[in-house]
């Protein structure tokens, strides 16, 4: 007989409320395609619900959910290679970076243009990264996870995470230097 889900997972509606935005964010940033991100978010939460009795609390719920999400992205990429990324990399740009976020910064038009260009350059640079590099890059700079958490979420050693992250950061910085 399996034990009842412990602690945080006992109220799964609260898990959905607290963690769905982060899961969706990671999936949308990874896939850059809203419909797939939404479907995989549901799948991620469903898998977590079905496996909730196996959760031992060795990692946080967020990290545990991210691990499921990382695996889903990996499976999704195998079934639908980079075409989503390549297509969405351009089409999503304006939607992504002309929203309220820039308006709230109350900066000059020139500064705003500079920020927009920097963000756009990073966005484009991430397209060229390998899947693992992109995953650790997004977990670090979008999800702001610690190296240890990223290691747990990806199933990699901390040293391997750092190596992938270094290659990703270095590649992005090189692209930025090449951007006029």
């Amino acid at each position, binding site marked *: 007989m399996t034990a009842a889900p412990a602690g945080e997972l006992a109220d799964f509606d609260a898990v959905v409320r607290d963690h769905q935005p982060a899961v969706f964010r990671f999936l949308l940033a990874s896939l850059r395609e809203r419909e797939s*991100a*939404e479907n995989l978010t549901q799948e991620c*939460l469903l898998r977590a*619900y079905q496996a909730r009795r196996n959760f031992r609390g060795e990692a946080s719920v967020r990290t545990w959910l991210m691990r499921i999400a990382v695996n889903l992205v990996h499976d999704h990429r195998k079934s639908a290679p980079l075409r989503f990324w390549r297509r969405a990399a351009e089409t999503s740009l304006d939607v992504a970076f002309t929203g309220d*976020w820039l308006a709230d910064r109350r900066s000059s038009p020139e500064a705003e243009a500079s920020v927009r260009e920097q*963000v756009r350059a990073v966005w484009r640079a991430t397209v060229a990264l390998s899947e693992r590099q992109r995953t650790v890059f997004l977990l670090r700079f*979008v999800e*702001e996870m610690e190296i240890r958490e990223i290691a747990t979420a990806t199933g990699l050693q901390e040293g391997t995470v750092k190596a992938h992250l270094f290659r990703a950061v270095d590649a992005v910085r090189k692209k930025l230097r090449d951007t006029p």
Partner: protein
Amino acid sequence: MSGHLSPVEVSEWLAGIRASAAERHMAECAGCAAELERANQPLALFGAATRAWCAAETPIPRMGAVASAARRRQRFVTMRVALAAAAALMIAAPVYLQHQRAIETARQDEALLEQVQTEVSRSAPEPMQPLEKLVQWNAPSGQSASTQ
């Protein structure tokens, strides 16, 4: 560490790879700290912009949706198992019945063969059996009966 952080060392720092010499240098070099800040800025902006974009796109969480989806999936799995079992039964039942019929036919053939064997092994046809018994009954004294 002799000089300032190289571009590769800045990337290493941003990736969480921090040699103790670099840490000592960073503690006392305002130039490198500023360079690190400049290098980190586009990455931080990217993170903030992506979070803002995703926040605008995030669907409203539906409470109870996951549990009901899990129940639907469980029902679907159960139905698939039931259908698979029914299909297996539909395939297996005729095979079993055919096998049973073959056994029954073989048993009947065996009985018939035995009956034929019995008939063939008789020394006289069935209607003449009473006569044969009569002859056998008279046999010990039959010799005298036939000679008398």
